[in-house]
């Protein structure tokens, strides 16, 4: 996993996390970890992509039911269509009222049927809520 601090508009501090794993169908694995904030696990069963957010803070976890449609869902170049690319987006907030943070995650998938694996990649942007 790669992590980098960000300076956001207005001077606020944020963080970007990214990771990629090759998973067998039905296997649950950690994809992103923000220390003391959250852990994001993922599992793929058939065509369904399941996410599990573990709240590591003392505040509540709030999942956004509606993230919104992307302007462009998937762009495929060259031979990529043979790997059945897919994507999913989620947004959630954790933490106490003061210092609450929101994370937007985009998850992308590729399927490698010859190896029986699915590549799951994610990028999450962590920023102060509000």
């Amino acid at each position: 996993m790669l992590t980098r601090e960000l300076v956001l508009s207005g001077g606020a501090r944020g963080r970007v996390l990214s990771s990629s794993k090759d998973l067998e169908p039905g296997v649950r694995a950690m994809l992103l970890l923000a220390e003391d904030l959250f852990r994001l696990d993922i599992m793929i069963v058939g065509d369904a992509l399941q996410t599990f957010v573990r709240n590591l803070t003392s505040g509540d976890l709030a999942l956004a039911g509606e993230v919104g449609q992307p302007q462009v869902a998937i762009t495929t170049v060259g031979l990529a269509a043979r790997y059945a690319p897919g994507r999913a987006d989620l947004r959630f907030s954790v933490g106490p009222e003061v210092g609450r943070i929101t994370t937007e995650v985009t998850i992308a998938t590729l399927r490698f049927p010859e190896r029986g694996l699915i590549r799951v990649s994610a990028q999450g942007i962590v920023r102060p809520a509000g």
Partner: protein
Amino acid sequence: MTDAVVISGATVVPVGTAAPAPLISMPELIDVAVADPGTGMELVIGNPTAAQLRIAVEDIGDIIIPRAGSTTVPFRAEPGGLRLHLQALAATRSHVLMVIVSVEPSEEGPIAVGQAIGAPTC
């Protein structure tokens, strides 16, 4: 509406003196191509922006690419094959992106398969 972008690309890896094959391009952010000059497969990362581009490559470290320049990074051998994961921050456009590329066997020869996720930070 989410502004995050996902681009998937795959191409046969050119071998020898052939020019690197374009794999993924995020307009005005990053260009990624693959090549095998005979010394091993490598990723050619281009910076089309007007400022230097700082990228972090997993298990390698930070690399600075000068504006309108490029750098070459060899693939890492992992148990599942050759692969590279990098993260780039384009300060001029307030975007972050991650790129994952692996090399997959095929009847046509080695194929580089990549995926990029980009999103604005503002």
